[in-house]
């Protein structure tokens, strides 16, 4: 419940973003930022406004890293 209150959104000026590069996957990005590729759903959930499938990301997309 508390986690709901501390979710960072795109209106937060201190939110971190990752611009998708060729060859990136959500798992790879999760490993880079969290040290654990299994946490990719965190990134997927935070970017549901632009992602519909965790396996489909495109270079140039700007992803919020919660």
């Amino acid at each position, binding site marked *: 419940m508390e986690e709901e209150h501390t979710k960072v959104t795109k209106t*937060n*000026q*201190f939110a*971190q973003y990752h611009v998708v590069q060729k060859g990136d996957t959500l798992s790879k990005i999760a490993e*880079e930022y969290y*040290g654990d590729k299994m*946490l990719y759903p965190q990134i997927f959930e935070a970017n549901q406004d632009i992602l519909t499938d965790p396996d489909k990301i495109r270079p140039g997309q700007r992803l919020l*890293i919660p």
Partner: protein
Amino acid sequence: MTPNNAAMNLARKLTIALVASTLLAAGGCSRAKDDATRAVSTAEASLAAVRDDAARYMPNELQSVDSSVTALKESMAKGDYKVVVANAPSVNSSIESLKSGVAAKKEENTAAGAEWNTYATDVPQMVTALQSRIDTLGKSKHMPKNLDSTAFGTVKTDLETLKVDWAAASAAHDSGNNIEALTKARAAKATGERLLTQLGMNAKG
């Protein structure tokens, strides 16, 4: 002139001189009392005009000036009018300094209130961003590059301290003490920026 007449004449002159000097002394005393009364009234009125603001912005200085005015009144009560008149300029000068100091503090407080708004937006957003990342990293089986579990533990502790500091800053602001609030807010934001760096969150993709 007979010796008797001369003696009577001298006695009359002495009496006149004595009455005159008594009247002069009484007049002088009355003037001193009036001057002293006026000096005390002026000091009291001048201090009363700034008292409320001084109690808020410069309580220690107010206490000191209050003591000076009290001493003036004590001298007045003892009939030391000359002492009152002699010390009044110094007391008035202290009151004027207090007024100037309070005016400067009020101005500083107003400016701090305006600057506060930036921090009131930034710091809570920082806390949210940091907490969000800490929550996610807490689920991670490994730490990302440039962060080990010891440093992560320190960041978590420091974020809790930051929350407490921010609550204190907000409380100061709510009570109208913008200067104190701003000082605490600046420190809180500096801590937040350090934690963002430690978690690698300043790197923008």
